[in-house]
């Protein structure tokens, strides 16, 4: 019926490790986080089911480049990039969650 994007846990773990080292941030990996799909479903209420949005102001997230979405979310969170609501929303997510949701949307075709 509808394609089901799959998570790739091994690759994700490697990426997380790389990210943690690169940013030097204290990211505790033993605290459980929601899956990328679970977080992505919260984005869907504004950005469309599975990140497919078709109106003037809400950008689609389906198929977005993973690193671009990670960068955008971090920039919103740190107030390096101006927005109407995304600055506030991004503050609710840590780096692991941002990476998980970016992985999820980047895999939707």
């Amino acid at each position: 019926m509808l394609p089901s994007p799959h998570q790739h846990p091994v690759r994700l773990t490697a990426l997380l490790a790389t990210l943690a080292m690169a940013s030097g941030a204290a990211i505790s990996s033993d605290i459980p986080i929601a899956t990328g799909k679970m977080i992505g479903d919260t984005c869907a209420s504004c950005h469309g089911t599975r990140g497919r949005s078709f109106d003037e102001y809400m950008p689609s997230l389906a198929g977005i480049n993973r690193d671009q979405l990670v960068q955008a979310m971090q920039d919103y969170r740190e107030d390096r990039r101006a927005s109407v609501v995304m600055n506030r929303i991004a503050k609710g997510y840590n780096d692991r969650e941002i990476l998980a949701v970016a992985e999820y949307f980047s895999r939707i075709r």
Partner: protein
Amino acid sequence: MHSSRRDFLKSLGVAGALALTSGPALARTRSRTAHVVIIGGGIGGATAAKYLRLAAPQMRITLVEPVRRFITCLRSTDVVVGHMDLDDITFTYDALRAKYGIRVIHDRAVGFDPQKKTVQLLEGFPLAYDKLVVSPGIDFIYGDVDGYDQEAAATTLPHAWKAGPQTLLLQKQLRAMPQGGTFLLVAPPNPFRCPPGPYERASLVAEWMIRHNPTGKVVILDPKDQFTKDVPFKKAWERLYGYNTPQSRIDWISASNGGKVLKVDAASRTVTAQAGTFRADVVNYIPPQRAGTLAFRMGLTNREGWCPVDRHTFESSIVKDVHVIGDAAVADSMPKSGYSANSQAKVAVQAIADLIEGRTPGEPSMINVCYSLAGEHYGVSIADIFKVVDNRIVKLPASGVSPITESPAQPLLEAVYQRNWHRTFANDCFA
């Protein structure tokens, strides 16, 4: 391979063949035979049906909802002031049927046997379920104030807090108001559906008056001293309606200033509050609220009149295999909003799909983003992310309400986003 075995496997198809050998596929057969019944086709129930299908392509899913065309409370005040028509906020179940293979039954749930796991319908055959989702919404508490009851609400003092006939009644009353008249809004005590809703309505009615009744006035009687987004709302009222000046079009009388209502005379549209007696031309009385009546009949409510749930799965703390979502559920710091109901539905059905397939439900993540209009081109918003900690839904501290800035773009864009959001959001629930 023996030919009869090969033919047998072929007849089962790929999934069936895998089911003979592997665990996850075995579980998939469980989800194929499982039947999930969803009662209530509002924001929560419709989202649950659609997202359960996305999580479990094979599952049998039945949605029970009496009405064929659902009108969202969201944006219903835009109908009161004529920005939108009722049709703009009316949605059908066609896509849930055709696109997602949901069996939608327009009937009323009238009975429930949690031991036998069946739901009785008013007209149709009983439904047997493996898991039941109930999204009963709210109903009103009448009788706590002398002179206001269901009859008064339906005829003279509409709450218009469920979109439909009362929305149009309030619209008609507003248009018929004499010049220089008073629109009195009685705000409800916490907790209630759509916490910013009364203040958005007061704002849009005040704006309507600038054009259509320039000497008219809005008075809010409130049993509270604070309300959601009150800082950006009051700033908007200052900018748009002269709030805090003698010419203000909006007068907000808080609990400390005597905003609590003591009695009502419906015939003369007179409301007596602690602050004094108010004679109005339109009275929009929004009563106190509790979980929808269905939740009471099913024995899902606590002493306060709401439905306690496990915060990870939204399974009722009272009845096993029944999940309660939306306004009726006890969800701690999450507001009773359509956005919350949509977010809770996604968590609940993912948990149901996991439980049916023998997996432990994962970590929930929930959100509420709410845009309100303080004027047609002036939006204010709140955005919060929620996690579950020690079986409580906790709001993460960093997010929150619109900042007050001197940038005219912020409130203007919030108003634009709001209109776009309603379309996208309705599609996420119904299409």
